């Protein structure tokens, strides 16, 4: 058996494998209060609150709230997409994974990136042409509003819930380490700020928070990777040679290690990462903030470049950590004799602190403070994006279309969305508190699997296949959702580690290889068997949808007025 899911989740929430393997995740030590980091973070908070205030004054309509008025440029949107996607986890977690096992970190870097071309080729432009605020607009374009909005909103809320719990718990732990603040403070601060950004500033404020965070993170990571390469005369070869000499595993760090040893599990991980990206509701929402399909297309291109560049940087940072930190005892908890230490297990704060400790090594305590503040800002931006996606699903999909059946005012809908953002924030704080000492490492993996097995098949089939009917999409989406969740619950990470059963009932860590094709197959089979009048009408309505999805003729334009 191999441990892909814990690795994945661990990498994502910034808790390292060595932690995940332990009995609990609560083993972090609260550090001394880090004042430079706190001041820099306060500056970020004040600045973004100023932006939120301005955005709130200018946000009146539903289009402003959900889609920033549709007037975001392709370049700005690409930074916002990158900001939404580059979590603190990918920064700290992947650089930590590279530090402890070298090459294996690349498996995640590539997996997280390769979903983007798929989004561009199959989804992005059609999504922009057909939809207005949420991906459910698109999936329900010619299908039954009630049924499709319910399944889309459920998929959205499940993804948001698991992703949020993982981020909240990760935030609490990280902030204990980075700032020396108690866990509960950290969770409450993150929750309160995300409520303010989303409820007052809507998509406009959320977008600019993402953009600023993306610039800070890319800037900080560039400086660190640059400083590492500078020490080795800008020769990656010299850096690798030094890392291989220093690392206890030596040459093995340049080759695939134990992370992926089961072919089925590695394929399943790949499927989940690749197609999960194309089903993440907070990412899909970003395509409605640009004016047209052309801008949507360009923003994916720029975003792919930014995200790919970022993952190359994390790789260099991880190797820099090996080369520059491993031989310096001041970054480790020393053993009983005061001189020996395990180069991987004994790093102060765990290996998820590699990037942070490296910041100190290459830039001193103020740069350390800067990187800590950036890590916190990163979490904050990601949870704000998730909250907005969840609030939109509740107000725009469930309330306006399902309960009120379109008989509501724009004002009531936006107000409900703001109230939902407050509600989601409070629930997230509560769950973050409850799950403090639980193993949440599998949750981000589960969020990606649900996105790949419910949201993506429903969306892709409704756009691309004429034969899709409401019954097909509804039942197929439900089957994918339930299959993904049940398989993860029965897997080692939950069934054995959390519930304490002796053996896992589902042998693999990642369900997507099975649950995603199952969803597609169910949508296809049920649609084929659907002989209702409604199904006939829905197939007939495909032409109109097709023309609009391919040309954008009739698409809702820039909402700015």
């Amino acid at each position: 058996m191999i441990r892909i899911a814990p690795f994945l989740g661990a990498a994502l929430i910034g808790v390292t494998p060595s932690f995940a393997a332990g009995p609990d995740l609560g083993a972090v030590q609260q550090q001394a209060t880090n004042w430079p980091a706190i001041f820099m973070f306060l500056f970020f908070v004040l600045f973004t609150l100023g932006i939120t205030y301005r955005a709130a004054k200018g946000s009146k309509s539903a289009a402003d709230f959900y889609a920033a008025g549709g007037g975001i440029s392709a370049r700005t949107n690409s930074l916002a997409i990158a900001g939404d996607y580059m979590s603190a986890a990918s920064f700290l977690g992947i650089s930590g994974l590279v530090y402890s096992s070298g090459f294996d970190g690349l498996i995640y870097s590539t997996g997280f990136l390769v979903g983007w071309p798929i989004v561009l080729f199959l989804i992005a432009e059609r999504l922009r042409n057909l939809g207005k605020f949420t991906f459910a607009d698109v999936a329900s374009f010619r299908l039954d509003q009630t049924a499709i909005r319910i399944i889309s909103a459920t998929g959205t809320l499940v993804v948001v819930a698991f992703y949020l719990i993982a981020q909240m718990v990760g935030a609490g732990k990280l902030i204990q380490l980075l700032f020396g603040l108690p866990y509960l403070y950290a969770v409450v601060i993150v929750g309160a700020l995300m409520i303010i950004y989303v409820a007052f500033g809507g998509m406009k404020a959320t977008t600019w928070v993402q953009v600023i965070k993306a610039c800070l993170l890319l800037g900080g990571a560039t400086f660190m990777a640059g400083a590492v390469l500078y020490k080795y005369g800008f020769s990656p070869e010299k850096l690798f040679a030094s890392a291989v000499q220093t690392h206890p595993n030596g040459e093995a760090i340049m080759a695939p290690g134990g992370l992926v040893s089961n072919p089925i599990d590695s394929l399943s991980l790949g499927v989940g990462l690749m197609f999960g990206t194309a089903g993440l509701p907070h990412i899909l929402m970003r395509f409605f903030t640009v004016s047209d399909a052309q801008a949507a297309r360009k923003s994916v291109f720029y975003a792919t470049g930014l995200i790919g560049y970022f993952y190359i940087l994390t790789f260099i940072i991880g190797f820099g950590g090996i080369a520059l930190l491993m031989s310096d005892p001041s970054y480790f908890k020393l053993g009983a004799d005061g001189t020996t230490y395990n180069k991987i297990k004994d790093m102060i704060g765990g290996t998820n602190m590699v990037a942070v400790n490296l910041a100190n090594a290459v830039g001193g305590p103020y740069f350390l403070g800067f990187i800590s503040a950036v890590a916190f800002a990163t979490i904050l931006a990601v949870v704000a994006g998730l909250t907005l996606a969840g609030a939109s699903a509740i107000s725009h999909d469930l309330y306006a279309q399902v309960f009120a059946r379109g008989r509501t005012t724009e004002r009531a809908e936006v107000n409900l969305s703001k109230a939902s953002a407050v509600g989601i924030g409070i629930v997230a704080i509560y769950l973050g508190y409850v799950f403090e000492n639980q193993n949440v490492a599998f949750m981000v993996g589960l969020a990606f699997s649900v996105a790949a097995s419910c949201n993506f098949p429903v969306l892709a089939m409704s756009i691309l296949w004429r034969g899709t009917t409401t019954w097909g999409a509804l039942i197929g989406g439900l089957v994918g959702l339930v299959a993904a969740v049940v398989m993860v619950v029965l897997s080692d990470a939950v069934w054995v580690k959390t519930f304490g059963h002796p053996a896992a009932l589902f042998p693999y860590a990642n369900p997507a290889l099975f649950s995603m094709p199952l969803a597609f197959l169910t949508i296809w089979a049920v649609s084929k068997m659907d002989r209702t009048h409604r199904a006939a009408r829905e197939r007939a309505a495909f032409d109109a949808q097709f023309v609009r999805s391919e040309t954008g003729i009739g698409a809702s334009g820039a909402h700015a007025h």
Partner: protein
Amino acid sequence: MSTRQTARPFATADARTSNGALDMPEPDHRLDRIAEHPIFKTLVHERTRFSWILTGLMLFVYFGFIGLIAFDKALLATKVGGTASLGFYMGMFVIVFAFLLTGIYVARANTRYDRLSAELVRSLAK
């Protein structure tokens, strides 16, 4: 002004609000004109083909990489030059390749497909 109306240009799009009703959508002549238009057909045919080819390439390269990691670790461990392994270069290649593919698609879409779309809109306006 409301964006709700602009979002539903065709009769079919309006029909979607009446849940469960059995009314077939009113035939829309503008829609038929577009769907049968030769430029529209060319545009859709070319773009669909191109995007599925690129999708196939991305799947092949990524799952090829994952497949090698799963089945042939020794190959990836081979040294190329000094310390860097073949696997390292392949991983970097996957990242750069993904970016290049999006670039190739956008370049073609910005020129060929946007021009076809513009021609289509012009000829519909006649």
